[in-house]
């Protein structure tokens, strides 16, 4: 087996540890403190925001237009409508703004 294969295998094990690790730690406690529960409830918004926010540093007019439309559509539409509207605006805007 090549070195590359062993790196991939180790990377897969490391990744699986991150995907199960939080649960293994939390499940050792019988009850979850309300503050911990509040923290866990904040996880989706916190992580997804941390993934998106730095992208704003590189965003040009086409990207901003797409994000603004995404926010506006989110006030009424579902996730699919939001995504398609944002993507459509991005693709059209990039034809004109580069």
């Amino acid at each position: 087996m090549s070195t590359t294969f062993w790196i991939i295998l180790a990377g897969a094990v490391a990744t699986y540890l991150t995907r199960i690790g939080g649960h293994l730690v939390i499940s050792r406690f019988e009850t979850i403190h309300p503050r911990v529960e509040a923290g866990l409830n904040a996880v989706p918004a916190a992580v997804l925001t941390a993934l998106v926010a730095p992208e704003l540093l590189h965003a040009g007019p086409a990207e901003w237009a797409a994000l603004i439309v995404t926010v506006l559509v989110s006030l009424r539409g579902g996730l699919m409508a939001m995504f398609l509207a944002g993507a459509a605006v991005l693709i059209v805007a990039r034809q004109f703004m580069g």
Partner: protein
Amino acid sequence: MAAEAISEGRTGSDFWDGVRLSMPVVVASAPFAILFGTIAVDNGVSVLEAFLMSAMIYGGASQMVGIELFGQHVAPWLIVLSIFAVNFRHVLYSAGIGRRIAHWPLLQQALGYFILTDPQFAIAEARAESGRPVGFVWYLGLGLPVYVFWVIESGLGAVFGKMIPDTHALGIDFLLPIYFLGLVLGFRKRPLWAPVVAASAVASIIAYRTVGSPWHVSIGALAGVLLAVILPPHHSGVGKRP
């Protein structure tokens, strides 16, 4: 007994409910799978190895980082550490989702954690929040198409990658941020949503500029989570739940 019969009858529709929700994820991640395969082969990784990476690691950003490092001939342990660093945010996901799927049989849980990606976690959390159960069949309906398409498209990218047209004009580098923003907005009715988003946004941007990628994701996420922990419980609405 009656309840059991009902839940069995609904199994099929639960699966297809999940599949329906997986479609935007399949669309948004397709360009990245193809791009990954293309870059992998460009960096001297074989088609089989690119395929294995997608099948075994199954985390887009970490695979891209791994491939970049393969091309630069850095020490193996450093590549593994980088993959771990990029994927570290999943620790928070598994802590959060564990509350929803703890009633599944152990093998189902083990598989559930294997396919716990960003959208998988966010969509499952949204379902739990709306009061519906996060069942294994529904979860699999959501995750399986994403996994299968991801692995197949990585292979296709590795084999046919040179045929990709102008990716910038098609906007594919910015599809995931749009989709993730949509997911963030979907949680806006949760208590503390605005302060958490603000804290994570500011912290991740500062960390991106100072510590650098990929740690900015985990640092930004922890800032938002810690804020929710520190604020008094009557703000977070946890105690009020029936």
